[in-house]
């Protein structure tokens, strides 16, 4: 059974989804979701350990068809690192979802909600495990479509969820279609869709303009799915008006998967030496990344709605991942993987905590949390730790990823960029302080409803906070895993990590 784990990782949630859709009883659907995501999380950890132990890439051929013809699932250092993040967040979000969904979505839709929930998780896991380019597109669409539906489900409480979902759909589809066009061109040039095969055949044709155009199409499609700076407009309304559980899940995973796919394709298939990649795309990604960091942070400072505020900050954090990728070096890539991992933890903690508040108070704005420091201290402290991690305060995971990001930049002598990265993360202090000040330093307004918190409400958020602090304090295994993942794409020069 052990060797079937890679496919089980995806199949389990995929099959559980329709099954959950049928269960109309109270919490039954949630039960299925909980068990499935739990199992998926265990599988991903097993895969991670197995891959680390073996040190090589696990390949699972679907139906025993050999690679170029058949579809293979590949678990290498990179996917082994990202899988636990996706399934872990999925599991904890499902844990929290019971409360959040019960509060925000009426009982009739629960079964369907969890079906879509499982589908989007399955889609994401599929994108990470599959070794076939077109298969990535299929899983991409599976997760996106269910995501559109999940966002739209927020309309029960906030009708703005509908236009937000619609716009998310339009732009998401445009992005995915661009990706398919790029794939088509690649297929024309190389005749294969298997990632490893593509990588081998591409060098013969990489001088042609079609190859670069294919790369441009693919990269652009993924930029949009990953909400890189100018293409991020769909993200903020979608996350802000979606149900709190969905925001928590999506914010920590959806865009991260696209970052992983971008790395897998840009570095895995095209490779760093691909003509025009380093200077054209690399430069573009760097500039957009740092621009995104500043725009996101400044917008967050101004924002009053907490969900929007942290959605904006997600754009900034994604900017940092883009910078990691743009640095086109092993350390840069490792920094991107680290930040992918840590950001998922931080955002998970933040949105789970905010979700709890939003569930009680309708909308979580600066007003709702004013003076809440005393009423719901534990939840607010979770938000505080999440905020500190966002800034990159030492002893939190955020610090580790910022540290390696700046080190990567310095290795490439991007002094200005390193300075700007540091500055923008310092700027993040502004909106975190804004929240701290509102929650603790200002009195609770008279008429404001009394907020309350129960263990089941803040435990999910605190699981993520403890993970953030844990990986912040004892980060060596995570850093090694990140560098192992980076070396899959840029083989480590002897000595230099």
């Amino acid at each position, binding site marked *: 059974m052990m060797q079937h784990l890679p496919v089980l990782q995806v199949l389990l949630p995929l099959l559980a989804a329709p099954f959950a859709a049928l269960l109309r009883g109270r919490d039954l659907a949630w039960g299925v979701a909980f068990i499935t995501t739990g199992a998926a999380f265990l599988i991903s950890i097993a895969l991670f350990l197995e891959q680390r132990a073996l040190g090589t890439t696990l390949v699972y051929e679907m139906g025993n068809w050999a690679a170029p013809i058949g579809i293979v699932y590949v678990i290498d250092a990179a996917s082994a690192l990202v899988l636990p993040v996706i399934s872990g967040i999925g599991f904890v979000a499902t844990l929290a979802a019971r409360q959040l969904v019960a509060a925000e979505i009426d009982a009739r839709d629960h079964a369907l909600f969890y079906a879509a929930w499982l589908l989007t998780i399955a889609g994401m896991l599929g994108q990470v495990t599959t070794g076939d380019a*077109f298969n990535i*597109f*299929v899983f991409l*669409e599976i997760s996106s*479509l269910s995501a*559109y*539906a999940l966002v*739209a489900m927020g*309309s029960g409480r906030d*009708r*703005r969820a*509908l*236009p937000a*979902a*619609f716009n998310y*759909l*339009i732009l998401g*589809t*445009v992005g*995915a*279609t661009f990706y*398919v*066009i790029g794939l*088509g061109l690649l*297929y*024309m040039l190389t005749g294969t*869709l298997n990632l490893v095969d593509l990588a081998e055949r591409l060098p013969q044709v990489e001088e042609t303009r079609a190859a670069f155009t294919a790369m441009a199409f693919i990269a652009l499609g993924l930029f949009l799915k990953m909400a890189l700076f100018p293409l991020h407009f769909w993200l903020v309304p979608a996350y802000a008006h979606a149900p709190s559980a969905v925001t928590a899940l999506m914010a920590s995973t959806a865009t991260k998967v696209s970052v992983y796919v971008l790395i897998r394709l840009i570095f895995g298939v095209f490779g760093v030496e691909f003509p025009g990649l380093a200077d054209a795309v690399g430069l573009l990604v760097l500039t957009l990344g740092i621009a995104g960091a500043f725009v996101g942070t400044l917008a967050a400072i101004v924002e009053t709605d907490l969900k929007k505020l942290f959605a904006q900050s997600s754009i900034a954090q994604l900017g940092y991942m883009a910078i990691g990728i743009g640095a086109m070096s092993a350390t840069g890539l490792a920094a991107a993987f680290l930040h992918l991992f840590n950001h998922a933890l931080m955002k998970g903690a933040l949105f789970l905590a905010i979700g709890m508040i939003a569930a009680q108070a309708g909308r979580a704005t600066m007003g709702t949390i004013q003076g809440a420091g005393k009423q719901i201290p534990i939840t607010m402290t979770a938000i505080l730790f999440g905020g500190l991690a966002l800034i990159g305060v030492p002893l939190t995971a955020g610090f580790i990823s910022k540290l390696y990001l700046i080190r990567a930049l310095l290795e490439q002598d991007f002094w200005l960029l390193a300075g700007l990265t540091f500055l923008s993360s310092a700027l993040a202090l502004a909106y975190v302080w804004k929240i701290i000040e509102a929650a603790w330093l200002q009195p609770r307004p008279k008429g404001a409803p009394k907020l309350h918190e129960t263990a089941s409400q803040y435990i999910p958020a605190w699981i993520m906070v403890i993970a953030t602090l844990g990986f912040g304090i004892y980060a060596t295994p995570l850093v090694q895993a990140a560098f192992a993942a980076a070396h899959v794409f840029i083989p480590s020069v002897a000595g230099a990590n």
Partner: protein
Amino acid sequence: MNPFIEQLLGQWNYYLVIVLMMIGFYGVIARGNMVKKIVGLNIFQTSVFMLYISMGKVAQGTAPILTGDPTTVYSNPLPHVLILTAIVVGVSTTAVGYALIIRIHESFGTIEDDDIIAQLDDEEDVS
């Protein structure tokens, strides 16, 4: 024949794809009406299907459906299979899109972008 015409004739299908793609894109960008956006999106996706299918065409090759006769020449089946999936994806996206449009119409009373924005602004001013 001058090389330009020759090249045009040789790859007329790709030009068609580009034209369709731009028409579809225009529909998405320029039109405020949501239904028109979905239609534009469909046109845009169809152009991709055209791209894949036309690249797989083998001279005198028939559609890659087994005819039982081993001597028949088929076009490359792979693009066709891929596009089957892509069509399914396209259809489901359109379905979700229209479902959303119906719900938007129910709650906003309009499916014009600008009107929805106006309503949202007024609502925001009130709150």
